[in-house]
C-alpha cells in the first residue's frame, strides 16, 4: 500500500448531506477539543506539524496563521475553493464527499485566530459542490456549529458562500479577494499581504480547501505525530489528481515521499493501451513538463523546485508517446492567453506573443530566432510579472526547454523543409 487515507477517510462511507453521519464518524470532535485550547496552543501544534499550504505555493501554514492571529479588529477567513487549475479536482472531492470536514477546518482556524466571519469562494462551475456546501452550512448553523456562541462557548462565527464567475485568475489570493468585494478579478500589489489587508482591506487568512481539511487531522494526532508523516522535505499526506493516459484515473491520497512513478504505475495502473509515457505535467497547466526519466522524484514540494514549479496543487497529467510536445504547449498557452487578467504589462502583452511563437513551432515554421525570443520572453514573464499566474505560466515552456531541448532543435530543423505546412 502506498496510499495513506486520512483526509479522505470518510469518502463514500458517509452521506455528505448528513451532519449526523459526519458526527458519528468523529466529526467536529477535534473542533470540540480545540474549543478547550487557547490560540497559542493550537497554532503551536500546527507549527510542530510543519504543514505547508496545499494550494500550490507551499507557504508554511503556521506562520501565516500566527501573523493573522496578531492582527486586531474585524478579520476574515477565506477558504479558496476556486479550483481552476486544469487537471485538479481534489478540492471538489473534499467538498462533495466530506463537506463538514472543510467547515471544521475553517472553524479551527477562525477560533484560533479570533476571526468572526468567513467566506468559501467556490469555483462557479462546481454547482454540485456549491449545493452540498450550502446544505452543510445550513446544517451546521442548525446544530450550532456556526452562528452565535457556538456550542455554548464565547466563540461566534458566520460562514458564507461566494460563487466564482469562471475566471482562472480568481484562484490567485488577491484576485479572489477583489472578486469577493465585487470587483473584477485582478491581483493587488504586495505588500500589504492579505493577512494585513485583505477582504475589504481587513486582515484576511486565506487558505486552500485541502489545507483547512488538514487541520482537524493535525490536531487529532498532534503536530509531532503529523510531522513524522511524509518526507524530510514535506510533511503529511497529499491528495493527487491523477489524469491523462493512465488506466486508473482518479483521486489518491499519499504521504509525501512517494515518487511520481509509484503513483502512475501502482495507483494509476500504468499507461493505457500499453503505450510508453511521453511526458508528464505536474501540478496543472502552470506546472513543469518532465520526461519519463525523471519520474522517480518524490512528491514533495522542495525537490520539485524545478523553475520554482513545485508539485503545485497536486495534479499529475500523464501523456503517452503519441502526443506532440508543441500541441500540448499550444493548449497551455491558449489557456493562459485567455486567462491572464490584463493588469500587468508583461503578462498581458507577453502571453499573446508566446502563443504566436508556439504556433510557429506547431506549424513547422519556427526559426532559431523564434526559439531565442521564446526563451527570453518566457524568462522575462516568469521573472517580472505581478502575481502567480505569470510567474508560473511559463513553467511548461521553461521546463521543456530544459528537458526536451532536442525536440525544439529538431522542430527548427524540420521547419527549414516544411515551412508553410
Amino acid at each position, binding site marked *: 500500500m502506498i496510499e495513506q487515507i486520512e483526509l479522505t477517510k470518510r469518502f463514500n462511507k458517509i452521506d455528505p448531506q448528513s451532519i449526523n453521519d459526519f458526527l458519528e464518524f468523529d466529526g467536529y470532535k477535534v473542533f470540540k477539543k480545540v474549543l478547550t485550547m487557547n490560540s497559542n496552543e493550537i497554532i503551536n501544534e500546527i507549527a510542530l506539524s510543519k504543514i505547508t499550504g496545499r494550494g500550490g505555493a507551499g507557504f508554511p501554514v503556521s506562520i501565516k496563521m500566527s501573523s493573522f492571529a496578531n492582527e486586531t479588529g474585524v478579520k476574515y477567513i477565506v477558504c479558496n475553493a476556486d479550483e481552476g487549475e486544469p487537471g485538479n479536482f481534489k478540492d471538489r472531492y473534499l467538498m462533495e464527499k466530506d463537506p463538514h470536514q472543510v467547515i471544521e477546518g475553517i472553524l479551527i482556524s477562525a477560533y484560533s485566530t479570533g476571526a468572526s466571519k468567513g467566506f468559501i469562494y467556490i469555483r462557479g462551475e462546481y454547482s454540485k459542490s456549491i449545493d452540498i456546501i450550502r446544505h452543510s452550512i445550513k446544517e451546521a448553523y442548525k446544530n450550532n456549529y456556526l452562528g452565535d456562541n457556538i456550542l455554548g462557548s464565547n466563540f461566534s462565527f458566520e460562514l458564507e458562500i461566494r460563487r466564482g464567475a469562471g475566471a482562472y485568475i480568481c484562484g490567485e489570493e488577491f484576485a479572489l479577494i477583489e472578486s469577493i468585494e465585487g470587483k*473584477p478579478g485582478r491581483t493587488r500589489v504586495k505588500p500589504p499581504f492579505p493577512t494585513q489587508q485583505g477582504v475589504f482591506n481587513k486582515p484576511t487568512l486565506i487558505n486552500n480547501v485541502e489545507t483547512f481539511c488538514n487541520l482537524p487531522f493535525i490536531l487529532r494526532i498532534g503536530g509531532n505525530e503529523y510531522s513524522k508523516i511524509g518526507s524530510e522535505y514535506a510533511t503529511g499526506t497529499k491528495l493527487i489528481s491523477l489524469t491523462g493516459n493512465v488506466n486508473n484515473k482518479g483521486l489518491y491520497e499519499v504521504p509525501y515521499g512517494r515518487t511520481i512513478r509509484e503513483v502512475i504505475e501502482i495507483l494509476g495502473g500504468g499507461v493505457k493501451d500499453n503505450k510508453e509515457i511521453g511526458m508528464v505535467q505536474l501540478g496543472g497547466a502552470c506546472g513543469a513538463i518532465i520526461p519519463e526519466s525523471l519520474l522517480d522524484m518524490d512528491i514533495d514540494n522542495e525537490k520539485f523546485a524545478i523553475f520554482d514549479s513545485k508539485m503545485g496543487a497536486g495534479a499529475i497529467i500523464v501523456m503517452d508517446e503519441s502526443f506532440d510536445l508543441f500541441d500540448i504547449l499550444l493548449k497551455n498557452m491558449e489557456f493562459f492567453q485567455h486567462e491572464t*487578467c490584463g*493588469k*500587468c*504589462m508583461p503578462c498581458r502583452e507577453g*502571453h499573446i506573443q508566446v502563443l*504566436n511563437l508556439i504556433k510557429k513551432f506547431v506549424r513547422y515554421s519556427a526559426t532559431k530566432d523564434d526559439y531565442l*525570443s521564446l526563451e527570453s520572453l518566457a524568462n522575462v514573464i516568469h*521573472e*517580472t510579472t505581478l502575481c502567480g499566474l505569470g510567474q508560473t505560466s511559463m513553467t511548461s515552456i521553461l521546463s521543456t526547454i530544459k528537458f526536451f531541448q532536442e525536440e525544439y532543435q529538431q522542430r527548427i530543423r524540420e521547419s527549414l523543409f516544411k515551412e508553410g505546412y
Partner: protein
Amino acid sequence: MVNLKINNINVTVTDDITILEAAQQYNINIPTLCYYPDLHINSDCRICVVEIEGYKGLKTACSTPVREGMNILTNTPKILNSRKTITELILSNHDASCTSCIRNMSCELQSLAKNLGININRFENVLEKKEIDDHNPSLVRNANRCIKCGRCIDVCKDVQAMHVLESMGRGHEMEIKPAFGRYLSDEFCTFCGQCANVCPVGAIIEKDNTDIVWEKLYDSNYHVMVQVAPAVRVSIGEEIGLETGLISNGKLVSAIKRLGFNNVYDTDFSADLTIMEEGTELINRIKTGGVLPLLTSCCPGWINLAEQEYPEILPHISSCKSPQQMFGTLAKTYFAEKENMDPKKIYVVSIMPCTAKKYEATRRELRIDNKTPDVDIVLTTRELGKMFRQMGIDFNQIDEVEFDNPFGISTGAAALFGATGGVTEAALRTVYEILNEKPLEDINFTSVRGMKGIKETEIKLGDLNVKVAVSHSLSNARILIEEVIAGTSPYSFIEIMACPGGCIGGGGQPYGTTNEVRLERIASTYLVDGNMVYRKSHENPSIKKLYKDYLIEPNSSMAHHLLHTKYSPKNI
C-alpha cells in the same frame, strides 16, 4: 532608519519608503513607466524591476519597501533584458506612429524605448484598431495609443472621484474606457482633463485647435484677439523648456504678438470684473437673505459636475459667467461698439490652462446673440507651446511687451485666480472693503493658500462673522457640496476648483504637473500678486472706467445681461 546597498553604494534611509524612493534620494535613477508621484502605486508596467539578493524573481522598485540589509542591483544584464523585452511587448500593441502623434518627443514610452536602446522589436504587432472618441469639444481618446498604465483611472477615481474611466475586459482584450464603451460625452465626464495631463503617451489628449487659429490669424475677414488666463504665465515656461514656475509676462505677450494676433489681452482683467460682480452678488445675498453659501462659477469642470450630478446645488452657484466668458462678451459688445466693428468679425481666442474651457466656450448659454459665441476657440497652455514651436519662437531672443488696452490692466487679486484659494482671497479683499468701508489691515489670506484639500477662514463683514471655504480637486468639492445639500454647511462662500492646486494644476497645463510642480507655480502666483501696483480688484482703474462708461455699476441690469448666465440640470 535602515541600511542597505544599492549598486554597492551604502544607503541609509527611513524604513517607510520604497526602493525607488531610496534610490532617488541617492541619485540612482531607476526607469519607470506607470509610476506617477501623486498617484496610487499600481506596479503594472514592471519596468522598474530590480534584483534583490535572496529574493525570488525580480521585484519592482516602486512597490517594494526597503528592509535592513537589502542588497539591490538596478541594472544587471538580466534587468536590462527584462526592461527591453517588456518595452518591446508594449510597443507591439501600440500605435507607434510617433511622428504623427501629439506626444512626439514628449512621450514617456518613446523616451523609455530610446533610453533602453530598443532598435528592433522581436515581436509581431498585434494591435487591433479601435475607434477614436473625439465626440466632445475638449478631449480625444485614442485607445490605439493606450498602454493601459492605469494613471488616468487613478486620477479620475482617486483625485477627482468621477469614476468615468475604468479598465474593462481581461487579458489581451483589456481596455481602459468609460463604462459600456461609451463616449466621454455620454458619461459623467467634466472634461477636467486630468487624465490627459497624467497620460504618459498620446492616448488621451486635448482636442487640438491650433490649425483653426492659424487659419483665422491669416484670414483678413477677422479681427483676431487673444486673452491669456492667469495660470498660463507661471507655466508656459515649462512648456517651452524653461524652468518650472518661471513667471513670463512681457515675453509671453511678445511671443503671442509674434504669432500674429491683432490684440493680446489679459483674462486677469475680466477676473477683476468677476470679483466686482461676484463680490456684489455675495454682498446682496448676505444683505437680503439670499441663497447661501454662494458657490463660485469660474471653473467649468465644476459647473459640469454640478449640472450633471447635483441639480439641487445650482441655485447656490454664482450667476456670474467665468472670466473667460466675460472677456469674450465684452470683446464682442463693449469693444466692438467702441471700435465700431461687427462683432461677428471679431474672433476671440483664449489661452487657458484647462480642457473644460474648450467645452465651456461651446455652451449655448454663452453666446452674445444666440449664435455668436462669446469665445470662439480655446487653446491650452500646451497648444500655445506648440504654436510657439511651429513659429520657432525662442523666449531668449525676444523683448518684453505689455498687454494691450483696454483689457490689459489688472490687479494682483486677479493674478491669484490661477491658484486654489485665489478667487476667495481676491473676493475677500474687495468685499471686505466695500462692506466695511475701510481698508483691510492685512490683505494676505494665507489660510486659504496652499495644497491642503479643503481650507477655510473667517472674516468680519459688517456685523457678521462669515465663514468661507475653499476646495480643489473634485473629490474635495463633493465633500463641501454634500454638506451644502444636507444643510450642514457652515459657510457663506465656497470656492470650488476642479483641478488639484486650482488652474495652475489644470488639465491643459504642461505635462509633468505633479504636486511638487504645482507648489512652485503657486509660489510664483503669489510673487506676481506681490509685485503688482494694484492688488485689489475694485482699485483697477480700467474696471472703474468700464463701469463708468458702459456697465453703470456691478449687478446693474446691463451687467446682468452681459456678464451673468444660468445653469440647468444636465441629463446624461
